[in-house]
């Protein structure tokens, strides 16, 4: 359904000079530097997937989103989405997609949210009989009943983001691009937004592509991640796979009856130790988790044990290091 093949994009940026002489020179002649924002990116996404598109700042995430949403024309490569080439059939194509830019609003600041929705209905030429059930459903699932009649400027950030997402779904798009949908939100709002993204994905079969810096978003939503760095595709696969590859370590926290003698267990590294508690990091390639627990129970009188996988943030940092981004 979404198919990118060999997409490349480079920018020319004029070098800025300081100083009077340089400035005078710049009037006639300019130095340019070329930046390869994207280098030969290829991937396919099927209908109904939720894909997390991640990478450090300046990696080329938003360039890719811009190309996929028809804003930018790439230098080379082909991109077919729903049978359209986004930048060629722009007006036809964009009827099928919804885009949320997390940091910018598409709602009109001084009028009630409902008025913005009505105007978007007209912009997308949604017939009234289709609009009514859609908007009712959106208001219900996003819990907007109490806020749609107040002006946007009076809403909290979380309320506004829910309205933004609703606004991008008024025309029943088949694909939803979310550019940092949870940026700046508090924990409760984040959970509400994630929940809703899941719901529309399940119930309406909307394909979701989201970029984010919050790995919890990815963990909660995406079965598949695409990692990009310095314009190149680094990893494309499911999250578990990524964990297995890079997240071979686990963290064990053990509480036990008082024991004043420090101890070592094979295949682990001690992260912290007190007479009542130890935190160990296990390399699961060297030793099994169950083995470590057995050894622990031999050495001390265990009261409580918790096992955590390595947080995904760490994996990403590790990945970035590995690829030297």
């Amino acid at each position, binding site marked *: 359904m979404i198919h990118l093949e060999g997409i490349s994009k480079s*920018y*020319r940026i004029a070098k800025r000079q300081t100083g009077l002489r340089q400035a005078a020179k710049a009037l006639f002649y300019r130095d340019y530097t070329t930046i390869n924002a994207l280098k030969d990116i290829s991937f396919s996404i099927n209908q109904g997937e939720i894909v997390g598109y991640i990478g450090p700042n300046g990696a080329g995430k938003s*360039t890719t989103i*811009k190309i996929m*949403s*028809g*804003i*930018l*024309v790439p230098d080379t490569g082909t991109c077919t989405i729903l049978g359209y080439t986004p*930048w060629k059939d*722009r*007006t*036809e194509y*964009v*009827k099928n*997609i919804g*885009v949320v*830019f997390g940091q*910018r609003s*598409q709602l*009109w*600041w*001084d*009028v009630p949210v409902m*008025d*913005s929705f*009505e*105007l978007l209905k*007209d*912009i*997308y*030429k949604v017939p009234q009989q289709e609009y009514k059930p859609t908007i009712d459903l959106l208001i219900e699932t996003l819990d907007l009943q109490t806020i749609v009649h107040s*002006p946007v400027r009076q809403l909290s950030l979380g309320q506004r983001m829910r309205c933004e997402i609703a606004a991008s779904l008024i025309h029943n798009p088949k694909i939803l691009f979310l550019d940092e949908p949870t940026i700046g939100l508090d924990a409760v709002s984040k959970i509400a937004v994630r929940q809703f993204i899941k719901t529309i994905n399940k119930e309406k079969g909307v394909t979701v592509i989201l970029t984010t810096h919050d790995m919890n978003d990815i963990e909660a939503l995406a079965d598949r991640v695409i990692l990009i760095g310095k314009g190149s595709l680094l990893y494309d696969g499911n999250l578990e796979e990524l964990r297995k590859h890079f997240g071979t370590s686990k963290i064990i926290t053990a509480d036990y009856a008082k024991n004043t003698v420090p101890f070592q267990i094979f295949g682990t590294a001690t992260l912290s130790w007190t007479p009542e508690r130890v935190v160990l990091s296990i390399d699961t390639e060297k030793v099994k988790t169950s083995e470590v627990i057995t050894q622990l129970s031999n050495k001390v009188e265990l009261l409580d044990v918790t096992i955590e996988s390595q947080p995904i943030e760490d994996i990403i940092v590790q990945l970035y290091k590995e690829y030297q981004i």
Partner: protein
Amino acid sequence: MSLYFKYLLIHFKSQMQYRTSFWLLSIGQFFIPFSIFAGLYFLFERFGQIKGWQFFEVALCFAIIHMAFSLSECFARGFDMFSGLVVKGEFDRFLVRPRSTFVQVLGSKFEFTRVGRLLQSLIVLVWALSNLSIEWSAIKAITLVLMIVSGVFIFTGIYMLAAAMCFWTVQGLEVASIFTDGGREMAQYPLNIYQKWVARFFTYVIPFGTVNYLPLQYILGKANGNELIHMLTPVLGSLFIFPCFLVWQFGVRHYRSTGS
């Protein structure tokens, strides 16, 4: 077109949230050109005429260009304020919507406070007309309306050119005010009072001459030569917007290939 009115409506609703500020600004818009008009009046008091044009003839000129200017500032403000949209990246939003960028930019901003300026120039218009002995006919009335319309098109065209320039650089945009504010100031007087090259430039390149000078001669019965041509010049002047539209389209294409 219906979408444009929907935009108009929503902006009107927003504006009405700030009523006091709206009235204050409107009053301001009334008084700024008022002082300019007062200056014009005093000059005529001293000199009596300008190259054979009488006060009320020039007042008519003044009224028409100021009406066209205030209307275009009200309804085509989106293009005038476009640099802000590009800098903030808001323009991307327009590209992911299934409508022409033209309508969306036009609908992105309205400046209703220009009603003050419009009212001021309307008063001048009525005053000037009631003091001029013009043999009115239906065609002359139509010509008068066409003059204002043509002015709106030309101002809008200039805004579009400046907006298209934003795709390359947002610096130095002030130059555009030579043609908007400067054009307005200049076209307050009949074009033939200026040097030949100025008059030519503002007839054939940026056709402000077709807004008032040429058709005004016809209305005042001063036209020598073909009256029909004088009457139709506002229509020709309106065509100015087409090349501007093409430049705009070109700018959008450039933006989409560079994403600057």
